[in-house]
């Protein structure tokens, strides 16, 4: 291996084959099968931190058009969100901005019972879309002019990044250009678990799985974008206990 930290799909595949001592000519370890295992690891790592990973933080700038009360965001792909932290409304002249208040949708409906009530949006709510995995942000009151707004939250990866071969740099293609050697290690360990398990080499599978758990724990503990105390109010992303 001539590279230290795999950053593109082909390098990850090479690293995984080295990890599992697999031959590229092995019909049980074709590029498609190895890529599938890496994508399984990719997905698994996505959900392995209940608080979300720092590199998942995402910001989107949009415009709430006059007469419009909602904005739709998919859970995958470009400009997607899996959870929303704040919505900042700007004024059309760029002179001020203010955070909107988040309410549950039924509370928003009770506070603004008339659909035709117009004014500067004061609140937002988020609900499912029902038909597909998407989120609908509802604003009330309904604006009469166009307002710029900024949504901050977190997003997840999608297969699209890894499906291209020789793909875009896996980590470089993600928001924030966040590179971590442990990230690639964790990916490879979980992919190794999938590969070993498919071959019924269960002891090796369990060893790879244990290493993956160690890597995730290390990432959860050590990877953060800030250090030390701040002056802001601490707001955990998901206050549920760690599994």
């Amino acid at each position, binding site marked *: 291996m001539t590279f230290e930290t795999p950053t593109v799909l082909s390098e990850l595949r090479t690293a995984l084959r080295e990890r599992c001592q697999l031959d590229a000519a092995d019909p049980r370890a074709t590029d498609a099968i190895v890529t599938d295992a890496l994508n399984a690891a990719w997905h698994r790592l996505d959900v392995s931190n209940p608080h979300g990973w720092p590199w998942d933080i995402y910001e989107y700038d949009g415009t709430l058009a006059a007469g419009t009360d909602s904005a739709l965001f998919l859970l995958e792909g470009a400009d997607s969100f899996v959870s*929303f932290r704040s919505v900042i409304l700007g004024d059309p002249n760029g002179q001020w901005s203010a955070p909107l*208040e*988040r309410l549950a949708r039924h509370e928003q409906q009770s506070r603004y019972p008339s659909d035709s009530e117009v004014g500067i949006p004061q609140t937002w709510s988020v*609900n499912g879309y*029902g038909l597909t995995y998407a989120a609908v942000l509802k604003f009330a009151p309904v604006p009469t002019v166009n307002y710029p707004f900024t949504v901050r939250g977190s997003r997840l990866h999608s297969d699209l990044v890894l499906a291209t071969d020789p793909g875009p740099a896996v980590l470089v293609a993600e928001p924030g250009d966040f590179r971590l050697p442990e990230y690639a290690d964790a990916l490879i360990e979980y992919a190794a678990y999938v590969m070993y*398990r498919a071959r019924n080499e269960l*002891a090796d599978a369990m060893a790879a799985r244990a290493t993956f758990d160690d890597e995730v724990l290390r990432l959860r503990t050590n990877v953060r974008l800030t250090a030390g105390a701040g002056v802001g109010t601490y707001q955990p992303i998901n206050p549920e206990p760690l599994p």
Partner: protein
Amino acid sequence: MTLATIRTQLRTRFGFSPNDPLFTDDIVNRQINLAQRKIARAHDWWWATSEVTVENDTGADVTVWPAQFSTPNDLLQVRAVSHVFCSLDGDYWLPIERMSRADALAAGGGRTVSSGLPVAWAAVALTGDAAAGHRQQVGLEFAPPLPDGAWIRFQMAVDTVDLDDDADTPLLWPPQFVDLIVELAGTALMRQRKEAKVARRGQSFLALAARAAQEWLRLARIRFAKPYEGAGFSKERGS
């Protein structure tokens, strides 16, 4: 991610041959669809909810859906309904309380006709409708009855749709969930193959796969617990 792709991933990961007569495409497809159902039941996934606004044009006190809905909503099964608002003009909405059917009738004074807004609603299961594709319908009963032309707005939780064609894609699941579908369906098929008997060093392939599926589900439940982060101002009553 299509049904055909999921099937291929499952066979690759669990070692099923596409030529195995015990695990034909139909059998694997069935387990994939069952896995989808299990995931849908495992948690109130927030993106599987939706807000619906519909005009009552039946003149009855029972509003049935999805029969009244236009496509594509009627592809989905409604699992539950919450937070009902009613309006006489489709603009000004008032929240309506949910009660048991008996309490709702009493609250409405037993009236069977009304030109005003109802005071209560109750949900009833309607199994007698044989409309195509509707395995079971849910009805909303209002007391007093909802007048003709009045409007209803409510939030509902929907169920997933079976994958039938090889080109079908899971409608309700983000790509991360494909692995969960594969693990759950693969575990079911392994059980069918009686893999539990095959144990090495105290660990069987089946036990390992089952544990992986459960861990996946647990992590997904936590990570996708809700669509917002941080403190808000709502009363968090949930739906």
